[in-house]
């Protein structure tokens, strides 16, 4: 890999920004160049929020990514908006708890993660983002799952019970991704 780009998108409040930041932190931990770019969109409430993370081995030029390699979409409007933009050969991760459609693109991989259900089951409805992150890391191996765990510990969940819950959700995401891809790693 020389450079990888992933967009996280959903409603405000779905932890979109945090998911991207955790990934970016993990990239730094592993000595990579990273850029995290939010939509700080119209000074208005509601609507779709998204962020893009660029992880690279070299200096990052354009932080503006029109066609990321991967999109993790948390709700229907995000699915509609970002799936078509994914680079051929890329990956879409769909929050199947809220999105009941799937893409007919055959030039990209797809993973369905019932992220909200996983999170609710684990006891924290807000952890849906972590489930998707688990799936993303498992599928792409852009960073190590271990690194992500460490970052979650440092930046997010200092309380032990919280930490364990997050780890459980992360693991669930990872497992579902692996199942979905049947062990094969997505091209990066």
């Amino acid at each position, binding site marked *: 890999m020389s450079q990888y780009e992933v967009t996280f998108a959903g409603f405000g409040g779905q932890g979109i920004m945090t998911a991207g930041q955790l990934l970016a932190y993990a990239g730094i931990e592993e000595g990579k160049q990273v850029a995290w770019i939010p939509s700080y969109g*119209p*000074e*208005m*409430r*509601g*609507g779709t929020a998204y962020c893009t993370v660029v992880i690279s081995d070299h200096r990052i030029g354009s932080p503006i990514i029109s066609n990321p390699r991967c999109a993790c979409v948390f709700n229907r409007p995000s699915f509609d908006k970002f799936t078509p933009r994914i680079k051929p050969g890329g990956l879409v991760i769909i929050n199947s708890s809220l999105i009941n459609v799937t893409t007919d693109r055959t030039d990209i991989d797809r993973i369905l993660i019932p992220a909200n259900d996983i999170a609710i089951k684990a006891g924290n409805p807000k952890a849906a983002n972590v489930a998707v992150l688990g799936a993303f890391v498992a599928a792409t191996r852009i960073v190590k799952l271990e690194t992500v765990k460490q970052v979650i510990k440092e930046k997010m969940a200092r309380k032990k019970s919280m930490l364990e819950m997050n780890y459980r959700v992360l693991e669930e995401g990872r497992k579902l991704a692996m199942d979905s891809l049947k062990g094969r790693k997505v091209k990066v």
Partner: protein
Amino acid sequence: MAVDNKTVFDRPVALRDVVTHYCPGCTHGVIHRIVSEVLDELGLRERTCGVAPVGCSVLCYNYYNCDFMEAPHGRAPALATGFKRMRPDMIVFTYQGDGDLASIGMGEIVHAANRGEKFTTIFVNNAIYGMTGGQMAPTTLQGQVTTTCPVGRDTSMTGQPIRMAELLSALATPAYIERVAVHHPKYILQAKKAIRKAFRLQRDNKCYTLIEVLSTCPTNWGNTPGEATEWLDDNMMKYFPLGCYKDFQEDDSGS
């Protein structure tokens, strides 16, 4: 008995049928509606020009169904002055937040009020900068947490919250100034009464009119719409008492 039924509550004509960008439970929407109802009831919509501020209500021109200007932050009273002086036959109102009116726009509002400009100001006081994400406003209460006073407003460093209705009432020029609220049905009805009176006084070319409306900002207060209603009741209502601060008398000479 469907034949006997009629619609007793419906969207006013002066309010377009669009979904606003306001957060769930934000009372900007209630204020929009009652201003629109008043415009309808007084038959003013077609000769009205509103002035939108910079703040969460910057896009209110998309919601009101009348001519509108969108002003630089805080300057709506100056635009309204310029407009109304050229077209005294029209109805002009500014719609301004507390950051817009009481912070950056202090000079303009004091002078417009003092000149006795014949327009109406709807002043939406939610004790915070909504649009930019919850910074301290001049109306932020002592101890209230915002993103620029993260440990709560310290009035020994930043002064007391400004009570605009009281401050503007200290001017000698005749005016009608009242503070209302919209977080309970009964206040909503009183608010509408006040707003109607303001537009009537403007229509009759009497005086400057300002209605300060206490409003919620659940998003930046960090609570649910229901909790926001309570917070307003328990905190803002104490520091910002409702009531008429300055009333226009026919024989008012301004002393």
